[in-house]
C-alpha cells in the first residue's frame, strides 16, 4: 500500500529563516511526486511535479528535490505570505496525499 509521511507536522519560522519540509514515501511504480500549497478555507494549489530521482524544481523562494525515498521542499528566506499547509502527494495511479506540514512564518 502506498504511504506518504510528511514531517514536521508543524513548523514555525521567523521571516528570513530558511528551512526544509520532508516527504518520505513508499509506492510501487512511482509516476510522479507532487507538492501542493493549501491556504485556510481553500482547496490545494499545485506547486511542483517531480518525476525522477535527482530532479529539482524552483519557484520563487521554494525549491523541491526528489530522491528514491523522499522529497524535500526547501524554503529560502521565507516571508509571512508563505504561511500555509504544504501537501505532498505521490502518484502510482491515483494521487495519494500526505497529512501536510503547517508552516507559520512570523515577521
Amino acid at each position, binding site marked *: 500500500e502506498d504511504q506518504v509521511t510528511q514531517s514536521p507536522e508543524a513548523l514555525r519560522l521567523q521571516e528570513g529563516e530558511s528551512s526544509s519540509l520532508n516527504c518520505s514515501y513508499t509506492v510501487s511504480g512511482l509516476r510522479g511526486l507532487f507538492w501542493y500549497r493549501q491556504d485556510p478555507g481553500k*482547496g490545494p494549489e*499545485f506547486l511542483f*511535479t517531480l518525476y525522477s530521482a535527482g530532479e529539482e524544481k524552483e519557484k520563487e523562494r521554494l525549491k523541491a528535490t526528489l530522491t528514491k525515498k523522499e522529497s524535500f521542499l526547501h524554503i529560502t528566506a521565507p516571508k509571512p505570505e508563505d504561511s500555509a499547509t504544504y501537501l505532498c502527494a505521490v502518484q502510482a495511479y491515483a494521487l495519494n496525499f500526505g497529512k501536510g506540514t503547517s508552516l507559520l512564518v512570523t515577521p
Partner: protein
Amino acid sequence: EAGVAQSPRYKIIEKRQSVAFWCNPISGHATLYWYQQILGQGPKLLIQFQNNGVVDDSQLPKDRFSAERLKGVDSTLKIQPAKLEDSAVYLCASSLGPGSGELFFGEGSRLTVL
C-alpha cells in the same frame, strides 16, 4: 479562466439526514475528482470520473455515498444517511486527463454533521 466551482460552501445537518454537493469543473477538463478532507488530514480520493464514466471509486462508502457526472461536465456527490464521521470538507478537482497529477481544486464544501 474560471476555476472549479463548488456549492454550497457550508452545510450543517443532523445525522441520518441527506446532503448533496455540486461541482462544475474547469471547461475542457475531462477528469473530475471528489476528495474528502477531514480536519488535520490530507485529501482522500472518493471517486474519479473520466468524462461521465467512473474510473476509481474504491474508497467511496457506497452504502451511503453516491456520485454522478451527467453529460460529462457537472457532478453531484450525495450522502444519505449522514454519520457524524462524515464531517469534513468535500473537495472537487479537475484535470485535463486521467494521468495528470496537476489537479485544480475548488474551494470545497464544508459539512458539519451534528
